[in-house]
């Protein structure tokens, strides 16, 4: 890690193909700033993304990266972090990737609490497939596949995370750059699995959950005297059906990452060209 890393070092020379005005620009910029300002550089960072608009992030950022299959980015990140705990692992995905196809992995990644950061670019719609309902879409949100609305409750990702034993649960907004970067930095520095849901409006297909909507409705927890270490207070925030909040909702100050509990600390990439010392004992066990 070098101290003179600038956030532009995390930028690749590829121009994003996201629609002009897409919320993902702001989300990504915040991730790059957060990484740089916490002392990381592209060569020690491993970024994993799933499929969809959000999945393109690996092309636009500069770091070690893998663009995985739909919904499976989290396990890839977990495997990489356990194999080399020195890496800064960040996983990015969309609301479909994270809470529909990947919902199972999300819950288990939360409870596993590997030290990594998961950023969901939540626009409450499927953008890349041109406007179908996502798991966070409102019940009455009309789309090409749900002409009368999904008629089912949207997933509450924060509630899922809290129920699964989440140790860092946050909500940010891609266009509030300062707060977003601040939250990302806290997430990176959290010793455990840090979940940041970032509202990243889709300007092309979602005319309900717009910048204006979020700007007007989001309440900053910083101004609400919210104590993020208080689980009951977090519960109230998460289940408040009247308001939407932004900020760190819950943070377990006693979080111990999975790899620490399991005593995994080695970089597993370095091995000799011979079997490890003592391997013959493995044979002797079978006498």
């Amino acid at each position, binding site marked *: 890690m070098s101290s003179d890393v600038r956030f532009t070092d995390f930028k690749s020379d590829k121009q994003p193909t996201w629609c002009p005005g897409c919320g993902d620009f702001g989300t990504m910029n915040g991730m790059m700033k957060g990484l740089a300002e916490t002392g990381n550089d592209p060569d020690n960072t491993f970024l994993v993304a799933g499929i969809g608009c959000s999945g393109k992030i690996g092309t636009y950022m500069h770091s070690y990266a893998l663009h995985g299959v739909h919904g499976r980015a989290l396990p890839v990140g*977990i495997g990489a972090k356990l194999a080399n705990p020195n890496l800064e692992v960040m996983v990015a995905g969309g609301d479909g990737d994270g809470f529909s196809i990947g919902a199972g992995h999300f819950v288990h990644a939360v409870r596993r609490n590997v030290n990594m950061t998961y950023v969901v670019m939540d626009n409450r719609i499927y953008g890349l497939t041109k406007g179908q309902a996502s798991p966070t879409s409102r019940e009455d949100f009309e789309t090409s596949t749900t002409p009368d609305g999904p008629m089912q409750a949207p997933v509450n990702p924060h509630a899922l995370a809290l129920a699964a034993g989440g140790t860092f649960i946050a909500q940010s907004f891609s266009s509030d750059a300062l707060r977003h970067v601040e939250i990302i930095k806290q997430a990176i520095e959290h010793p455990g699995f840090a979940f940041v849901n970032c509202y990243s409006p889709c300007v092309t297909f979602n005319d309900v959950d717009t910048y204006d909507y979020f700007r007007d409705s989001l309440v900053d927890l910083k101004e609400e005297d919210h104590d993020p270490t208080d689980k009951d207070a977090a519960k109230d925030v998460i289940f408040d059906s009247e308001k939407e909040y932004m900020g760190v909702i819950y943070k377990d100050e006693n979080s111990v990452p999975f790899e620490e509990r399991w005593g995994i600390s080695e970089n*597993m990439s370095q091995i000799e060209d011979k079997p490890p010392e003592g*391997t013959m004992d493995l044979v002797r066990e079978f006498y």
Partner: protein
Amino acid sequence: MPEDLNWAIGGEAGDGIDSTGKIFAQALSRAGRHVFTSKDFASRIRGGYTAYKIRTSVDRVESVVDRLDILIALTQRTVEENMEELHEGSVIIYDGERTTMKDFEAPDGMIGLNVPLRRLAEEAGGAIMQNIVALGAACEVSDFPIENLDESLEKRFGSKGGSIVENNSKAARAGQAYVRENYDLDLDYELETTDADYVLLNGDEAIGMGAIAAGCRFYAGYPITPATNVMEYMTGRVEQFGGAVVQAEDELSAINMALGAARAGARSMTATSGPGIDLMTETFGLIATSETPLVITNVMRSGPSTGMPTKQEQGDLNQMLYGGHGEIPRFVLTPTSISECFHKTVEAFNLAEKYQTPVYLAADLALAVSEQTFPPEEFDMDKVEIDRGKVVDEESLGEWVNDKQQFKPHALTEDGVSPRAFPGTKGGAHMSTGLEHDELGRRTEDTDMRVEQVDKRNRKVQTAIENEDWSPREFGDADSGNLVISWGSNEGAIREALEFLDDENVSVRFLSVPYIFPRPDLTEEIAAADDVIVVECNATGQFADLIEHDALRRVKRLNKYNGVRFKADELAAKIKQALEESVEATA
């Protein structure tokens, strides 16, 4: 004095059948005798028929035969299930005081030994030791020195402390004494002991041991029969070598964790069985396209769907060869014996990293659950070599950058293999993806680059075909016009079948193929043969199809798919019959 003894204990799952069998198998192995074991079990925890069978000889044994000399029957069903394998002179040890065995009478010609197993066990310290009483009785029947049991009992019960080992030892001797005092047996068994020091292990364990020897540091899996033992073996052992074993939430997660670890530079593996392979197949394509080295072990069982989870089959060949959308370069290795499970696992890791390609390591249930004795030299760690392929470091990656100093993880090379930089390597930051990409790993739809990258990935296979040894293992009479070809776990049974056939003056050349893709070109061997028989445990002859495709010649198919592995004597008869039929056809 028969050199072979075929022994079994059978009862209900939960009766301690497995551990009793294992105690006897270890005792035989420690006494310097060769052992081959097999298991019949049902997909349930308690109840249902289950059996542990042992074939033992002073000579090496590699398979099971259709014969049972001594059967410890804890239930009547045990006798019924094995009726075809029992013969005149077979000894059946049972407890006539057990309600279910009260009216049991040994069939004509067989010797029934009614031993009060439970009562003698209680006298020795607890009813739970009834199987050990039976073991003692079996020792007496087979003239096997009972002292040999003691070490196995120590290994099994030593950690439980107190007088447990001693009581078990007493129980065994009670069984021995009961038979000696109540039956005047005139059997000519004499289980000779030798000074040899063998190890006893099954295929799953051999795979796990091979993985650790090969430097595997990361394993992620999800429990599934019959692959779970690989994970259970590695758990607690990989950690001793600085690695980790993670039980994932499902197979999708398992393979993706393994992929992540592999990209981070760890030698990484997952193991599953057919249904799990289905779930992993999407990611399999990503692994190939992103050129990530990964070993995926498939311990096959009967399919399709959930099929028969505890039964043998080799039905996934096509799945491993063709599974996944698009065209995916891959290697498919099929160990042919328990010791080959070790060696092929090492090879799988080297192939995966040298060619940055996913490798299927395909064992099957017959290999996974059977145990066999080996001289420990068969697993000589000094002979294991680890080749990580084209890994670059901070200095050498400079040879693989473009004019903007960007690292090219998918550089177009002559041999198709590109440089690999582990995350953390200075200057090597790059992305990789399942999307078609350029040399930098970035998505492209450029038609020329698409063709170049597809060709590059396929070129790796071509390079491997040229540089690696894909030969079959050859047995029998090299000059014979009767050619038997098989793959995977059938090797042992066929090798023994050759001996039976030899006794009947039928000569056979046998090629055992441990590689499905790439595979040896057997065109010449097939052209030189009068008769070609392909033996495999599936209904349609998936390997026979490949042979016909390669050699442009029709072959005979000998298939078994009732869930039970081939047995040596059964195979000898079937091969002989197939050869006779073709003589008739040409006559």
